[in-house]
């Protein structure tokens, strides 16, 4: 079964800076996930389409180290 990596976000330390969104070379991310940063309403990054190529550019770019690349398998 072919394994591919995709970003997994830990929003606790995320500051919604969108550095990861811009770093993505294929436009797979956007700041669209509603949530809270402390008590402030905010939007956080998430995968918004199936374009992710697992390149890890988002994870490498994140200053707050909120993104881990995790393996996913076909059919998941």
């Amino acid at each position, binding site marked *: 079964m072919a394994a591919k990596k995709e970003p997994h976000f830990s929003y606790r330390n995320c500051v*919604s800076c969108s550095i990861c969104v811009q770093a993505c070379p294929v436009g797979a991310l*956007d700041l669209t996930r*509603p949530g809270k940063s402390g008590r402030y309403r905010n939007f956080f990054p998430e995968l918004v389409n199936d374009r992710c190529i697992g390149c890890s550019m988002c994870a*490498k770019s994140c200053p707050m180290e909120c993104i881990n690349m995790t393996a996913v398998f076909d059919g998941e």
Partner: protein
Amino acid sequence: MKSCTGKILKVDLTAGTTSVEKIPDEIYEAVLSGKGLGAWYLYKNIPAGADPLGPENILGFCSGALTGTGAFMTGRWTVVCKSPLTGGWGDANCGGVFSSAIKQCGYDAIFFSGISEKPVYLYCDNKGAEIRDASGYWGLDAVESENRLREDNSRGKKPCIAVIGQAGENLSLISGICNEGGRIAARSGVGAVMGSKKLKAVVLAGSKPMPCADPDAVKALSKELGRKINKMWIPKGLGGGIGLMGVGMGKSPLALPMDGSMTAYLFREWGTPSNTPLAVTSGDGPLKNWSAGPNEVHGMRLAMDYNPEKINKIEEAKYHCYSCPLGCGGRLDISGIDYSEYYETHKPEYETLQAFGPLCVNRDLRSVLYMNELLNRAGMDSISAGNTVAWAIECYENGIITKEQTDGLELKWGNYEAEIELLRKMISREGFGNDLADGVKRAAEKYGGKEYAMHVGGQEPGMHDTRNDPQLGIHMVAEPAPGKHTIGMSIQYGAMSLCDICSWAPPATLHPKSEDLEPTENIALISKANACYSMLFDGIGGCYYAEMMGVHMYKAIEYINAAAGWNYDGDHYMEIGARIQTIRQMFNVKHGYEPSKVKLPKRMQGMPPLKTGPLKGVTLKNDEQVAAHWKAFGWDEKTGHPLPETVEMLGINRLMEM
């Protein structure tokens, strides 16, 4: 410079061609990128006497030297050109996401020359640049244009788009350039220059990696800053007390150096609207077209009308510019405003709130939210438009302008319905509005009331009163793009602690406010330090609010060294700031803009002084302070022209040969 691409894109709109130019590394060493790169390029390439709305003018979109390196708060992009508003150097600065998009196309800046025969837009991605027909978008407002352009170019990565609205298309001299649904590079009439070139938009969809010498070191600095900011919060409901704080500040005979972290706390909670009630009661914000103290306009009531908690109540979510952990922006739900055809708007900045609220003695916050959206969509500068509307109201109240001339509008203090209608006319250049669409200087030349026309060298001043902060008065005049409020203030200097990175910058002290009025060498060094640090931030694409956090919270010097692979100290970087400022002033001299002829309006100098309030009796010694500022820069203290030995010492002659 390892944090820059080393290339610029040049677009000739007359010929319909594009080309790429490599920039020598020495240029980045000398002026960084952003406004510095723009100043170098425009000084060299715009011929003296060029018509600002003609083909010889060049319009540049510049990213910052730190944009895309992982450095927080470096997502500002700067638009540069010869200003049609002042006839001299022009620039405007904006947040959003566009700065990183320039670099992801593989360039540090994009420069447009010439004039297209028909409306066009530039599309650029990893494969290259292409000039495309924009006839189908011409006439649409900035938000609608941006949405449609994004839809029509959605095959690859979501594009970032800079666009003009109707104000820029109509060549309004107070128009700007928008991105992200209405964030606007507003000053200097840059929108009119874009409109004159028939350039509707710049659409960028590149995805190239952005360079950085030591990304791990940069990320470590950002992580430290991000963690601090993430822990900041202010208990709910305290916004109503800000006006009272302003009363205390206004009454105090002493100027207090503020801690830089205060900026972060206030702006994280409320954004810049946190300043409005404070400005109304402390003397910082101009009232009734710069003519009144707080008591004359029921200041405490006005302060409560603009309590930022009211804005937080309708905030749907925070808005963050690229690389910003603070999020001083926000998206507001304005569907409750019955006469609004729009449901949402960007949170207005303090400048807009003050300009259409207290400056016009308008107590209706909702009307200002609506006007904010009108201006953002049209792409019109709210500072310039607000000063112009306030002038019109004062002229009307004093019988200088009649109801017939205003097309029937009852321009009275606080009549927000008339304000809205006048704005609509200004945006569409209809009737009386047509005469106001080019700013207050030109309007007063036609109708009179010059004593009520607040402009500095043709540009309307930002919403901070020079009588409250004489340091600001120096910069409003001495700044090569006059009237700007973002170059330096006393309160900002106190927060920045520049003496800890710069050997010649004086320490900020607790001192009597009256000392700030004197034309001393100490005050001149403070104003020079303010201007140099501000230019440094414009070179790196840094945000003004990062600057205001101070050197201990926002470690700009460490950031630049890590991103560029350099190891310079603060003095070196302050000299870069002085070099950028000197080139901008040389641009003015080259184009016949005489700095010594630029004066603050008498009212802004306290001539005559206000009779009530915190600024009662204050009169500036602005001419003497400006002369001392020029001298500190190594410019002629009488003319403001950079002296040959200063130009030589800064190595500018050599740069211009490259």
